[in-house]
């Protein structure tokens, strides 16, 4: 039984008690990073207060407990995304970006050769573009893009031809700029029909809708803890055990080896092969707490709530400001998350965000690490507002009030 009430989440989130420029904070930047609730913060503090030790090393009590915290988080994560072979398929990284670098530099470098094609989309975050360009520059693979249509959705009309020769189709579950949610299962089925594997950037989806990698049928799955109420500095890379076992190590050093001699080394088996050096341990305690907290709220409930907020905000933004504020993204809530990229006529996003700050409103101005997408729509930047599980329509009220001020100031 879950009991979801966004007001309760608000009370649980200490940062939302801040007053900025004389106004209660209006946090609308959850697509950048979500705010951790008290249980997450306390889990990390408790770890440092009671259990801190390095993992996989000592035999003393606290070292065993620290290892339990770390491996327990791996198990919790496996359950959270429904990894079929459990925790042996879950690799901890630094963030989604590092997960994609692991994919490109380990699996990609070992399995792709000159002329092979990696298909991405025009709405990808740079994290799912640049590692492929780097691999292209090293090995001569081809990086191909699925275009985005004027309705802010993937243009799949030519997908069969685009998938020709593709070894990996790597795309985002939800755009961090447009809010568009892609039809993951359908795209995955088509890619598999063409013999391609599928990697999913789930950074923008894991904290906002239920996740099941078996149901999605994807082959690789990447996300960050801090986008699902967890801490920064911790990311996740998941792939099927059969693929993971075949992947060569990524970073080298301590922790990732079975043996080291003067003439070489033998890498460890399983996920630890990809976890060189002392990992973020307290952060995994935070991730476990975040997973439990989200499961308590129910991700389907969060999705429904954010859907309502988004629908309400889209309607009000369309009706006010005489068309001076344009939403760069789908105009309805069908297959759409709570990300509202705003283009204010005659006002640069940086100036919009600066005025909004005076009202305590936190939005993100910029290109959102998606420059190919921004170019597609002839934009240098947008001011992006995005919802989280603690967001309320009163946040939209303040956003509209502050936007009104920005529009007036630069009129």
């Amino acid at each position, binding site marked *: 039984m879950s009991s979801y009430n966004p007001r309760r989440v608000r009370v649980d989130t200490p940062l939302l008690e801040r007053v900025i420029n*004389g106004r209660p904070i209006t946090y609308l930047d959850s697509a950048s990073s979500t705010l951790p609730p008290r249980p997450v913060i306390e889990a990390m503090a408790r770890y440092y207060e009671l259990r801190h030790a390095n993992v996989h090393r000592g035999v003393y009590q606290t070292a065993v407990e620290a290892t339990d915290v770390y491996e327990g988080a791996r198990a919790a994560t496996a359950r959270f995304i429904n990894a079929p072979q459990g925790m042996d398929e879950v690799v901890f990284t630094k963030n989604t970006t590092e997960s994609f670098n692991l994919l490109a530099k380990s699996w990609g470098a070992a399995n792709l050769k000159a002329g092979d094609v990696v298909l991405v989309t025009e709405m990808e975050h740079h994290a799912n573009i640049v590692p492929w360009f780097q691999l292209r520059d090293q090995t001569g693979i081809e990086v191909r893009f699925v275009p985005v249509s004027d309705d802010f959705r993937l243009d799949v009309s030519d997908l069969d031809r685009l998938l020709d020769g593709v070894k990996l189709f790597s795309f985002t579950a939800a755009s961090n700029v447009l809010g568009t949610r892609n039809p993951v299962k359908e795209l995955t089925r088509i890619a598999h029909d063409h013999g391609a594997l599928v990697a999913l950037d789930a950074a923008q989806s894991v904290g906002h809708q239920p996740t099941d990698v078996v149901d999605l049928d994807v082959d690789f799955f990447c996300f960050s803890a801090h986008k699902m109420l967890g801490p920064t500095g911790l990311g996740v890379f998941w792939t099927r055990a059969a693929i993971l076992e075949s992947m060569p190590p990524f970073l080298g050093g301590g922790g990732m080896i079975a043996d080291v001699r003067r003439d070489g080394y033998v890498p460890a088996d399983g996920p630890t092969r990809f976890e060189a050096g002392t990992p973020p341990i307290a952060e995994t305690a935070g991730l476990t707490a975040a997973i439990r907290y989200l499961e308590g709220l129910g991700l389907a409930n969060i999705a429904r709530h954010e859907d309502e907020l988004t629908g309400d905000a889209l309607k009000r933004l369309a009706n006010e400001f005489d068309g001076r504020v344009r939403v760069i993204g789908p105009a309805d809530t069908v297959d759409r998350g709570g990300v509202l990229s705003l283009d204010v006529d005659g006002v640069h996003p*940086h*100036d919009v965000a*600066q005025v909004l700050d005076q009202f305590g409103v936190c939005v993100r*101005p*910029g*290109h959102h690490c998606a420059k190919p997408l921004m170019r597609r729509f002839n934009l*240098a*930047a947008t001011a992006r507002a995005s919802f989280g599980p603690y967001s309320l329509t009163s946040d939209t009220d303040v956003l509209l009030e502050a936007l009104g001020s920005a529009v007036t100031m*630069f009129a």
Partner: protein
Amino acid sequence: MANLDDLYREIILDHYRTPRNRGELSSPPAIRTEGFNPLCGDELVIYLDIQDDVLVDIKLSGHGCSISQASSSMMSAAVKGKTIDEVRAAIERFKQLMTVHETTLDGNGEAPVADLRTMGELAALQGVVKFPVRIKCATLAWNTLSQGLDDYGVQGTGSK
């Protein structure tokens, strides 16, 4: 608390709404230099027509926020017709104006800034220092101008 009026002075908004010296010069002979602010996506192109050690003409194109647009517009008005030495000196003065002093951030008294009397309209940009993340917006044009002079080996007589 930093007040928004410190940032968006009327003269800044005026330059933003009606920027001076917008346009292009054919290059060559004009020097063409690009500047980028990778964080916000702002792009600026500066064209410089330099003859006999004098910046005879300057044109700007590109896009950016009110602060970067106003700063580049004011810069163009301030340096047009000046000798290269004078342009270099203006760049130095402006960079000094944009330097963050701890006292400014604490709000405890005024920082020892450049002599504002010599800066004309540019002094209006002084308030930007109270918004540290916006300093890059204000300095984009000046850094690009400086880069343009450096790239093309333009030396003032005084710097030989």
